[in-house]
């Protein structure tokens, strides 16, 4: 008999279709009703897989080989890793209403919950705001609002604050804590940055790279006894200093052609979410002046929706400004043909999957270099980012953090002079973080212009320059 909010895994094993070895094998984990658990572990340890098991997606929606017992009592709500996946409606109010509709609530109660949940996550644009006009971080909060409105017995969160700045992340954690305290729901959070969550949970479970439980303790013992061993394993233990960027052979990232300084001059960008029922214009950037220089890492910071990704794309000539201009590189990147653009630009998009075109990780890394006729040492690059064991895997079959590292390699392998990284450290453990940060700093030292939009305080600390944005304006 299972009571509402209970979670039980016995000998849980999962081997996704197309992978030779199981991602998780023989996992035993029991969580009592109302328990609040933080699930941690290195990138690729199978944390998201456990959440997918709990929502019943393994062997049904996702194909592969499942064995062992998975039991969940009561209603489950999941905030997925890619927040855009859970959008089901055109307007944010209607989107949040989806869960309450599914459980058959009456209209008044539905809208009460919608308003309360939107308020709780700090989305104040109003019920009719189009979902298409939201940024990555805003979508993440919308997704959480949708789950809170459902009032589930088991709340599952997959890196729910990965794209949020400190303030929004704190308010999201507070909203989760309040909601879980009020409803007595069971909570399972997957996060890389454990520190801020430790006050909120009563148990920490750590998986190692093979999906085995290596620690299962209360937060106090966890912080006291496990800091060094788990820190070495790659877990972001609170109290540890930021890892040292991993040194890298500068020849791997030395630009073929060093670019001059790039400047954005009085840049205005208006993004249009167009539908026939009306066009929503979001002023992503307004009168922005900024400079990015060769030999430096520039961090673009600011709350979600501040225009960081937009500025990054504008610098790379991937998006045309509404008014204003980008100066410095001739011919202007915006007017170049694709191959000529790629010769000077490497870009890591926010959703890494959008860039993948090859059948294996190894081929993927070499694509751009092959296109513009440059040599590339694929094995050395893969080894630096810890992807060598996955060289033959299909890019789509990697975990979220692994895909992001692969995306970084596809951007840097052809040694462009301008490297634009949109949230490159999301989903990374301490070790892979050190490799990512090492790559960015090595490229800058070798003469590249490196710009990154990020919420990651440790990455900002490494930057030579910081461009702070808020609501599309330089702060």
């Amino acid at each position, binding site marked *: 008999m299972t009571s509402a909010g209970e979670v039980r895994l016995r000998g849980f094993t999962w081997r996704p279709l197309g992978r030779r070895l199981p991602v998780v094998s023989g996992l035993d984990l029991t969580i009592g009703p109302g328990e609040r658990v933080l699930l941690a572990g290195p990138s690729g340890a199978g944390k998201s897989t456990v959440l997918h098991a709990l929502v019943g997606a393994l062997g049904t929606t996702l194909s592969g080989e499942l064995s062992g017992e998975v039991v969940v009592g009561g209603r489950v709500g999941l905030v997925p890793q890619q927040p855009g996946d859970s959008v089901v409606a055109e307007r944010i109010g*209607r989107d949040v209403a989806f869960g309450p509709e599914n459980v058959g609530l009456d209209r008044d109660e539905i809208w009460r919950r919608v308003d309360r949940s939107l308020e709780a996550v700090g989305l104040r644009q109003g019920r009719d705001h189009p979902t298409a006009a939201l940024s990555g971080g805003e979508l993440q909060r919308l997704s959480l609002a949708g789950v809170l409105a459902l009032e589930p017995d088991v709340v599952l969160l997959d890196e729910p604050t990965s794209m949020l700045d400190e303030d929004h992340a704190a308010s999201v954690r507070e909203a989760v804590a309040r909601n879980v305290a009020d409803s007595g729901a069971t909570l399972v959070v997957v996060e890389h940055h454990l520190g801020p969550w430790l006050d909120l949970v009563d148990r920490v479970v750590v998986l190692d790279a093979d999906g085995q439980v290596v620690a299962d303790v209360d937060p106090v013992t966890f912080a006291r006894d496990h800091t060094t061993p788990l820190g070495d394993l790659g877990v972001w233990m609170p109290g540890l200093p930021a890892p040292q960027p991993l040194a890298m052979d500068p020849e791997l990232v030395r630009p073929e052609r060093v670019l001059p300084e790039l400047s954005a001059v009085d840049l205005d960008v208006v993004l249009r979410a167009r539908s026939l029922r009306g066009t929503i214009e979001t002023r992503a950037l307004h009168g922005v002046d900024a400079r990015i220089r060769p030999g430096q890492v520039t961090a673009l910071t600011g709350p979600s929706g501040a225009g960081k990704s937009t500025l990054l794309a504008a610098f790379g000539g991937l998006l045309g400004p509404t008014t204003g201009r980008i100066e410095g590189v001739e011919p202007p990147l915006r007017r170049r043909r694709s191959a000529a653009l790629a010769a000077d630009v490497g*870009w890591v998009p926010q959703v890494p999957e*959008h860039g993948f075109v090859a059948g294996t990780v190894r081929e993927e890394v070499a694509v751009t270099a092959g296109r513009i006729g440059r040599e590339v040492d694929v094995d050395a690059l893969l080894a630096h980012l810890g992807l060598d064991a996955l060289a033959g895997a299909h890019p789509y079959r990697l975990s979220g953090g692994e895909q992001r590292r692969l995306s970084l390699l596809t951007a840097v392998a052809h040694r462009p002079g301008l490297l634009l990284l949109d949230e490159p450290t999301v989903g990374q453990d301490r070790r892979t973080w050190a490799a990512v940060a090492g790559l960015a700093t090595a490229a800058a030292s070798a003469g590249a212009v490196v710009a990154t939009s990020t919420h990651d305080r440790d990455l900002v600390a490494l930057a030579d320059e910081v461009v702070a944005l808020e609501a599309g304006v330089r702060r």
Partner: protein
Amino acid sequence: MRQLVVRLNPLVLVSFGFASLLGSFAIRDLPSAVAGVVAYAVAAVIFLPSWRYPLACLALCGVSAGLVAYSAWRLGNSDHAPVAAMRILVLAWPGAVAVGFVDPSRLGDYVAQGLRVPARFVASFVAVLQRVTSMTTTWQQVDRTRRARGLGPGRNPVAVVGHAGSMTFAMLASSLRGASRMSIAMDARGFATAQRRTWAEPAPWSRLDVVGLAVSVALGAVPVVARLLT
């Protein structure tokens, strides 16, 4: 006047497509064909708030209309070619335009509450429609990434066509993969166990909707009337 169409309920909007579809079957000769096309063109000028979208739809429907006319002409039926072309326009164009104004969630409300179609089916249908409307954003992202990776098309027209093909394939792959992730996300918001589903918004019929439906039926009847009169 030209903003009214935005306030019509989605069933009325869809009815424009159905009425024109049925009406197109009555197009057999030049007078009925011309009457049908002119009636919808005039209605578009009077009622639609923007030009670009209906013209884009017209261009796309024009391609198939042109192909039909061409094959009729090649088969030696050159008198019939313009009629066949116009029939295709009346059949496809009004529906294509009207559907563009439909908000998927509102269509779901009306189909489920007004027409009593099973709730789970409607909810998943709405979610899929929503995915289609968000496809432009995905296309933009994929296109941008490929451009940055040197995989964009060059000046060569053959390469441009090849690029469009490979983009379409990428979109297909992305939507298939997106579909499974979306289905997980939906199930994990109570959809897996939704037995008795409710709807956040009602599905009322206003006086404007009734007038809209009458206009839709009248437009569909134009080719029929033209045929009876000639």
